[in-house]
């Protein structure tokens, strides 16, 4: 595997692992981190989390990564992967702003 691809994976894995561990702890989910597929639907179907849990997810992201998810941006909360994409995107914006 080329080093560029490995770097993308490493960056993503670091975010995924932090988020999953925090999510499992905050929501007392009966799963190990490796049980949570990154595409699983968080709200409604899949994990079946509700609107109160959604608030916890938003706080989890803020605590883990210092990234705020605006109230109207429910699009981001579709899956672990879409949340990770958002974190990476926001970090890149902050990076280029500096």
């Amino acid at each position, binding site marked *: 595997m080329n080093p560029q691809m490995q770097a*993308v994976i490493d960056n*993503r*894995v670091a975010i995924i692992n932090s988020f999953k561990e925090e999510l499992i702890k905050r929501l007392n989910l009966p799963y190990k981190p490796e*049980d949570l*597929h*990154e*595409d699983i639907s968080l709200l409604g*179907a*899949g994990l079946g989390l509700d609107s109160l849990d959604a608030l916890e997810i938003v706080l989890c992201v803020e605590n883990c990564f210092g990234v705020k998810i605006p109230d109207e941006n429910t699009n981001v909360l579709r899956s672990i992967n879409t949340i990770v994409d958002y974190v990476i995107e926001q970090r890149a914006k902050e990076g280029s702003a500096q």
Partner: protein
Amino acid sequence: MRVSPLREIMLRNGAKFVERYGVETPSLFSDTATEYGYVRDTVGISDFSYMQKFSVPEESGVDFLDGLFAGNVARVRFGRILHTFLADDEGYLLADCYIANNDEEFIVLCESIVDDSELNAVLNRRGAKEAGLENLCDSHVVLGVDGYKAWAVVKEIFGSDVLGLPYLSIEVYPFEGGEVRLVRAGKTSEFGYLILAPVSLGGKLFDTLLKTARKYEGGLCGSDIHNDLRLEGRFFNIFAEGARVRDPLPLGLQWMIDFDKESFSGSGPIKERRERGVEKKVIGIQAEGDAEDLKPGSSVFDDSAQIATVEATCFSRALSSRIGLALFPASVAYSGLDFQLGEKGGCKIKTISMPPIMPKSLTVKLDEI
């Protein structure tokens, strides 16, 4: 081959049919573009009578069902539904199932990748007769109402309190002198309902649903477009990636399992595989260009090394490109990576986060209507 009790009605409405695992289902009524539009923009009515349907008394059924299915049936509250699966003794998928606690009965709705006789044999071996399991396949129909305006159709027919039904819940409603069981569930990522009705009410229910759907410029949908909608919304499809991969763990179905349960069908092998660690995972891919070669069984390459196999594909109208699911080694099963289809020179494939679309239904708050 089992056919729908509504077959003649479907045929009169232009249905083409396909056989899946010994059961016939309407696959297409008009064209996939039109049927896609019905679900994503208005409402689609579908014949889901291909599902295997059972009822069992709650008292005798709870232990039977809990010992069979991967999820925790005993914890399903009155009026709520568990989405789980049935596995064989080796822990490989047989059916994708909804189990509904409907007061003094459980209703079980299955999409199975074995035929009726094999599924019935599995259930009977596990004590179906003793539990009082009743097969509803010939006595009942299931009609689906899916789409951005699905809530409007069921509200018009069953009343506005239907808007209060949470996702994965069941309620009984009167209809034409009888009763139907309305389930709020669906796999398109838009609003969805399944209505389980006795055959005697099936024709009238279908006519009423279709007439009401047409008021909202909706229409009939077949299984072909449901396959595409499921993939686009990243809903598990046992008829696509499920039938090819069969192992619930690489498919990411751990959320359907209660690992704390002592046992269920296939629990030993599933728990062993979980302990060993999942070596492969199914993740989303998107292809550049026409990508006509992107189909189940195609190989994904990293330069000259084959790295993954495509397990499901569709043309995503929301993204205007072909998307799919592919089985990758877990070490590289992450979105944002570039590969190609076939050896060097094949069309470019990118791994993507799923679901790749934002369904219109997520913008609607039913409790504010």
